[in-house]
């Protein structure tokens, strides 16, 4: 699984961080950064929730 963040579209709502603070974080630059890229199947539902609930549709999950 790979998570892509489109930082041109992200405006730093941080909904993803609210769902998985260990994976996503809003930086001082006002956009979201990944804290890890290592995911297992157990992460899938949370990552899909993050994609679905992103107010700017900036996230994409591959695989």
């Amino acid at each position, binding site marked *: 699984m790979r998570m892509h963040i489109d930082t041109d579209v992200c405006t730093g709502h941080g*909904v993803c961080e*609210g769902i998985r*603070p260990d994976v996503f974080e*809003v*930086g001082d630059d006002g956009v979201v950064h990944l804290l890890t890229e290592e995911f297992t199947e157990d992460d899938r539902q949370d990552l*899909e929730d993050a994609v*679905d*609930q992103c*107010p700017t*549709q900036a996230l994409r999950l591959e695989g």
Partner: protein
Amino acid sequence: MPGERLVVVGASLAGLRAVEAARRAGYDGEITLVGAEEHLPYDRPPLSKEFLTGEVEPNYFRDEESLRTELEVDLRLGTAASELRPAERTVVTGGVELAYTGLVIATGARARELPGTPALDGVYTLRELDDARRIRAALGPGVRAVVVGAGFIGSEIASSARAAGAEVTVLEAAPVPLAGAVGEQMGAACAGLHERNGTDVRCRATVAAIEGAGAVESVVLDDGTRLPADVVIVGIGAVPETRWLEGSGVILDDGVVCDETLNAGFPGVYAAGDLARWPNPLFGETMRLEHWTTAAEQGGLAARNAIHPEQARPCATVPYFWSDWYGSRIQFVGVPTADEVRVVAGDVASDSFLALYRRGDHVSGALGLNQRRPVMKLRALIGKHGTWQDALDVAAAG
């Protein structure tokens, strides 16, 4: 399974997320998505924001091809459902009976009308793309705009109208705007944005009449004040769109009454989004939220619960909404009723501050103006029933 059909009524955010979640969960029955609007599902929040200020295109979530082919959806746009017969597991849309095994009700809300508003050109509400197109066409440099209602939508419209060059007056019946959404103290703090940006907001102002001959000419207040107006936009809230469910047996009480799993009282029938009223186990309170992220979250959950009712999961969520005015972002998480609201960073007289809401020893909410970093850390904390001290620590860490 063959012979199964998930019917989703309402082709907007909650409805689309329902369809996507069902396919992702491996559902291989038929899916029918019924929407009253002619448009493919599109994003509403921009309609009061950037859409009003420039020639931006509507933000459609998906194209028709991906809906029909990738998600294998039987898409019925421009068709309103008119009846639900839960005992027969049937929905009537456009005069056609549609049998379902699972149903997601996602017909959202419509703009509340100001009682007694005459049918004059130049008087609008804002809920749909077509409304936004009309309002955008009416705004421009020197246009005199009156916005009725200083809630989030009214405030965004005022901010956008200013950006489009209009002269804007905002009328608010309450003594303080947004008191219900964020409490009086923070309502006043948010309203400061209007003041600092030179928008005329008049509280305790009640509209007595909207006048004109053919087209609107003025708004008259109950104290006799007459405001000349080229365009009037009424932003006084939304009403859950449940008219088609009257008489169905589904319990309606300012929305569709659901249980924790969003079940609406009949087998296979779930509700999601702006019209769902459900007991949120995280707060022990019954809620109905008109927030984007809630609609997205509930749409997916309602579909998963509708296709696997035996594994239905509760909707436990910390409310979140945002609003963008004059280039500033307001974010709110949690619930606004509190014993204390404390500003812990920045200054309410400026364009950057963070306020925490306390209930007993716990944090119940947080409001940030241009405070993107801490807000969602606080949302996660509220979801874990974090203490007031934990919240103060998060805020202090910045």
